[in-house]
């Protein structure tokens, strides 16, 4: 079947949702829900807009969408409560000689 190609790479809004960038980086960010104060700084700083403060089990916490997190680490570096850690993806946990 032929694909449809928008001339000039013209794109309609929200098309970027289809581009899952979560497999780009070697690391992912993880939020420690105990330490997180839901201050929303990471939400503001995430260049991909993939952190959202949500209510989970009665507490507001930052949630990282690993479908889009590129592992840049900005969130971890701006978190004032040490609540975000970058973790190596399982795939990259290999011995390299």
């Amino acid at each position, binding site marked *: 079947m032929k694909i449809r190609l928008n*001339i000039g*790479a013209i*794109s309609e809004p929200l098309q970027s949702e289809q581009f899952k960038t979560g497999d780009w980086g070697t690391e992912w960010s993880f939020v420690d829900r105990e330490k997180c104060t839901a201050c929303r700084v990471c939400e503001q700083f995430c260049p991909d807009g993939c952190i959202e403060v949500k209510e989970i089990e009665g507490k507001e916490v930052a949630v990282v969408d690993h479908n889009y997190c590129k592992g840049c680490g900005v969130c971890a570096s701006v978190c004032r409560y040490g609540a975000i850690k970058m973790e190596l993806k399982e795939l990259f946990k290999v011995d390299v000689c």
Partner: protein
Amino acid sequence: MKKVVRGFYSVAYAVKLCKPNIICAYPITPQTEIVENLALMYANGELENCKYITAESEFAAASILVGASAAGARTFTATCSQGLILMSEVLFNAAGMRLPIVIVNTNRALSAPLSIWNDLQDSMALRDAGIIQVYVENNQEAHDMVPQAYKIAEDKRVRLPFMICMDGYKLTHAYEPVDLLDQNVVDSFLPPYSPEVYLTTKKPVAFGCYAPPHIYMEFRVAMQRAMERAKEIMEKVFADWAEVSGRNWGGHLEVVYPDSKNFVIAMGSIVGLLRKVVEELRNEGISVGLVKLRTFRPFPVQELRKSLENAEKIIVIDRSVSFGYEGNLSIELKSALYGMSPEVISFILGLGGRDVPKDFLKELVKNAILGKEKSGFKGFKEFEEVIP
């Protein structure tokens, strides 16, 4: 209405008749007078539904036109040399976004050393951008090309930027009689530009979006196909123009004395000089014809092969060079004629405005035909390289 005008005015006047919506440029010799004249027309209120924007650089000028063209405006700019290569990052984008921006490039040498004079090195550097390139011989042809450029570039099957290349000074600043077009002739030939998709808040879109490896290549294939379609559409537009204006500039090529054994091929204003050279050589009994190459991109391979199928010797007049190889037109021509067996002799001359007198050119062509002249740079002084 026939008037004696300078090349820049013949272009500016034609642009005005095409009713552009956005004109944006940064001054650079010898293009400046084109946009200066347009700015004057704009200030005098002669350009309706148009905005003239002054930019802080050629990069900015091209960027503004990308935005304007994407928003559905008919756009114009003129530049050359350093200005063109400063635009190049943006112009590759304009081609990829399939925006029908019309550019007049007043061919000028590239730095360094700094030169404001004419050769074709600047537009050759943009060869692979996905921009249609047509080279004109005189100011009437430059004038006539402007409405045709819009018609071709804006054709839905094409949608590519269009660059009209005219020799700096030799054409831009030369006085020539030009039959200036009537507004109603242009209006009947060139419909207003109305793209189906453009930047609007009513139906938001983005142009030239990110394409990962699984989809990038298809866009480049689409550009190549658009160029191939342009080749046919241009022939049709050229023919229509001949009917509308009464002036027939030929197709992608003009071949003079097609039955000759030897041919000279060139682009731009030097073709005018070669017409005279060819006449004189024929009067001396030498069988020589002339191929004026008008369209450089898309490159008219089949037309060239057909026109030169019986040629024994082809002399290429290049006014630019691909350092480390040879003259640019020579490279393209040899590639187009692959499998055929004419002898191709390539002369690189006239760089940076170096004068090419008629008798000098005639001797070169004659000696090449007689087998007494080899390919290479011609008309330069021998020198010894020193470090001061």
